[in-house]
């Protein structure tokens, strides 16, 4: 992984070549990363490796014509050729109508989400940790499978207008699936953190094992509309589709869930339950992020949903220029939380007369972008709740459900504490209605 000086030197070298070749504006960005992982199943490590790579991208403009080249060879000849090829592409391209001059000098804080231990995995220590996971699975007579990963990267950029930035970030994660020996139960749990040392591998294994044991021998439930409790993982599995809908341009163009009639958007409307807030914050203590958007705009706290109201959409630098406003300082991560003290997992269950407790969703896909209708299936833990207690495990179900309807003011009954599931932090939710359309035989 390249240090600041090494990374910026490469960027500036390419920048100088691009200028020499005739570029009037340019941005050179770089990512240097090292990644180590181990997958396990079948009571052994199935695949495991380490890789290091470097990606350098030069984007240049000549008479507002744009060209871009990416390569991973930091040799002197390759850097020169990259810049020259980018300029050649620009010269024969039509005018880039969405050209916005590159950023000038700006100040950025250090990224808070980096731990050196994550960059340098001790293979023996990892094997010992995974041995403990597999031993725990064996003791519980479940079959364990999972994935341990640690990645550290440095990103840097230099522009012809004088912007220089460099950030380091890291992320470690462990996920475990435990399946009962009779094949009727399955549990999953995952955790991640920017510091590998903080990852609690035993807790992840214990949670997955518990879910596997408690989900054995499920009974069928008729498809239909039921009250549900979504654990944070299940909320995370759906929230990705919500956050993909915040693009201002798509909404302004009339082809987004946040488009309104007569060419307007739904900004300012109370579309969600008033206790729900969704914001981005690069300095969030639990989920820090690189303090810059991909375009180099310094990131700061940005509220997308405040007390249930759609407060902001995401404006790129180009679209902000078109709309004569500032680009948004994010989002760079997504934190959903309740404005009221969170309900505990027990309280969420105690407060439910009858309904379903859902661990996780699988193969979630967008069916209708107009209302963010999604389809997918429950997986690795589904239970029927009766009179405030877990009654029995249920067979998996396919759902078809609008995310807007799911988070609507009238549908959210209770909100739990938010949990980090990078790049999200999301709470458990108790919802009045959620629609299932068929049963799945899958365990």
């Amino acid at each position, binding site marked *: 992984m390249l240090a600041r000086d090494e990374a910026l030197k490469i960027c500036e070298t390419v920048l100088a070549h691009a200028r020499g070749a005739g570029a009037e504006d340019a941005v050179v960005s770089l990512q240097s990363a090292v990644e180590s992982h181990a*997958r396990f*199943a079948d*009571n*052994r*490590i*199935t*695949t*495991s*490796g*380490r*890789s*290091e*790579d*470097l990606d350098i*991208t030069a984007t240049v403009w000549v008479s507002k014509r*744009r060209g871009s080249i*990416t*390569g*991973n*060879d930091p040799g002197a000849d390759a850097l020169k050729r990259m810049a020259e*090829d980018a300029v050649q*592409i620009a010269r*024969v391209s*039509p005018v*880039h*109508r*969405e050209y916005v001059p590159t950023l000038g000098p700006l100040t950025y804080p250090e990224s808070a989400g980096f731990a050196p231990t994550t960059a340098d995995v001790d*293979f*023996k220590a*990892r*094997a010992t940790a995974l041995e403990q996971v*597999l031993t725990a699975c064996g003791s519980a007579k479940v079959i364990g*499978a*999972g*994935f341990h*990963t640690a990645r550290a990267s440095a990103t840097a950029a230099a522009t012809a207008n004088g912007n220089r930035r460099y950030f380091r970030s890291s992320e470690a994660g462990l*996920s*475990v699936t435990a399946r009962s020996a009779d094949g009727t139960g399955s549990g999953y749990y995952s955790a991640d953190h920017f510091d590998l040392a903080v990852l609690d591998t035993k807790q992840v294994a214990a949670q997955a094992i518990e879910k596997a044991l408690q989900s054995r021998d499920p009974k069928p439930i008729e498809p239909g509309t039921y009250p549900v409790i979504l654990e944070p993982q299940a909320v995370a599995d759906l929230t990705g589709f919500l956050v993909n809908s915040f693009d201002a341009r798509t909404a302004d*163009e*009339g082809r987004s869930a946040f*488009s309104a*009639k*007569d060419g307007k958007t739904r900004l300012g409307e109370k579309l969600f339950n008033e206790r729900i807030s969704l914001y981005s914050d690069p300095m969030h203590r639990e989920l820090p992020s690189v303090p810059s958007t991909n375009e180099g705009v310094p990131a700061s706290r940005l509220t997308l949903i405040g007390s249930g109201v759609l407060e902001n959409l995401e404006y790129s630098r180009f679209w902000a220029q078109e709309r004569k406003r500032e680009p948004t300082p994010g989002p760079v991560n997504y934190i959903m939380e309740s404005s009221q003290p969170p309900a505990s997992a027990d309280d969420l269950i105690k407060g439910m007369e009858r309904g379903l407790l859902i661990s996780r969703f699988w193969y*979630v*896909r967008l069916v*209708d972008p107009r*209302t963010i*209708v999604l*389809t997918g*299936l429950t*997986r690795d833990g589904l239970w029927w709740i009766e009179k405030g207690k877990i009654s029995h495990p249920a067979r*998996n179900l*396919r759902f*078809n*459900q609008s995310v807007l309807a799911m988070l609507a003011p009238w549908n959210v009954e209770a909100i739990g504490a938010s949990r980090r599931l990078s790049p999200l932090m999301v709470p458990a939710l108790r919802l009045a209605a959620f629609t299932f*359309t*068929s049963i*799945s*035989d*899958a365990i």
Partner: protein
Amino acid sequence: METAPVSRRQFLATVSALIASTYVPAWAEIWQPGPEDAAKRAEMAEAALARATALGASYADVRVNRYRRESIATRERQVQNVSRSTSGGLGLRVLVNGAWGFAATNRLEPAAAREAADQAVAIARANAVLASRKVVLAEAEKVVATWTSAFTRDPFAVPLDAKIAFLLELNATALAVSGVSFVSSQVLFVDEQKYFASSEGSRITQRLVRTYPQFSTTAADRASGDFQTRAVVDRAQLVGYEYVENYPWRQDAEKAAHEVVEKLKSKPVSAGRYDIVVDPSQLFLAIHESVGHSTELDRSLGWEANMAGTSFLRAGDAGKLRFGAAIVNLVGDRTQPGGLATTGFDDEGVKADRWHLVRDGMFVDWQTTRELAPLIGQQRSHGCLHADSWSSVPFPRMPNVSLEPAATEVTLDDLFSGIKRGLFIEGRGSSSIDQQRYNFQFGGAVIREITNGKPGAMVRDAAYQSRTPDFWASCDGLGGRATYRLWGTSADGKGEPGQTNAVSHGCPPARFRQITVLNTAAV
């Protein structure tokens, strides 16, 4: 921001301006591997293999690969992005004490290759503590060969101007249809230059060229806030630029434009059970999800339990379990012309194979690798090991999986003719299937009613749901050879860390009886 249709004259003026500056990229020459490149690759590979063997690896293989991609994206009358990327490096896999280790580096120097060997062996040794079973590989021939995919025009030698003109003409064609609000189009060209060497003596050089055109049209009604999209995204093939020149893309764009306008005005589907005829442009995806993934042996053995899932098929089912109706024959095929997963040799040097997965409706065989084949008592791998990059660990990936057509010349009209109340489903909508590949739900891009054997009005908001064995059991009609088409997906995800695989599925249109159809806007 809606755009008015562009006139043919305006369009030609734009294209002429572009063509005036014809440019063949310098990298067309730079990328032709010469003797020096071959020698450098061999030097890296030999350094890594020698070090791994010296450190105690019982088996090692190394891939020294270079990939280049060119991507052009447009919307309406403008070019959004022209980008090229190259990526080269070395990935080494070793077996030590029956456990795997892997290391990869972008630094193509002998010292870095030896460092990678040190790391791969250290990883394997550390992990061998957990090896409850030692890895055993099926026999494979020592191969020294060179293989190149079939193409007649190298896309990387075609001037950029021509490619831009192609996309802008697609956009102009679609925008000329009244009611079309937006259109975007992209083309991606991929060139994989792969060198494989193993401690068993195989040395294989391969080159694969793929061409990926795609486009999407949108009709938006600003007054009501309603909109619909018709995308054509699954036409990529293992071919060269001749695909851009020879296929009637403009006709497709014009058809898609008319379809999206009709779709915006179409009525919602009535939920219920229908006889459905599924076009190859949609059926390929049903094959991919329900057959392609369920017949992966690694899934059945639980190796993918933590991510993609397992399979409803079990190791002992081959030769015993009925998969579908007797007319259903499905083959795994890494030799299929144009197929995205077609290759000369897989990523452990096994020659490309063609074999039946389902014969006469019976499930008969699996997708295998050298590690998987012995676990079900087979002596040879079917050649399904693949990595999406030099930096990725090779693991079992899907070959082209294709449905054989009827022996006689059955037409699409023949398939419609037996239906009183049905639906004809074309193109990609949303798709979702459970982790054991039983329960699925697929939409479509264009869905029309079939009434008394005739296709008619378009309907919207429809998706069909079924269960894999029930779905294939309900198949009672297949199109003939003349209706057979090859469609494919360029980004099939699997594994941790996630890797993508490009894979094609050939099929005729097929008829399925009494399938559940939802109105997705009414749920």
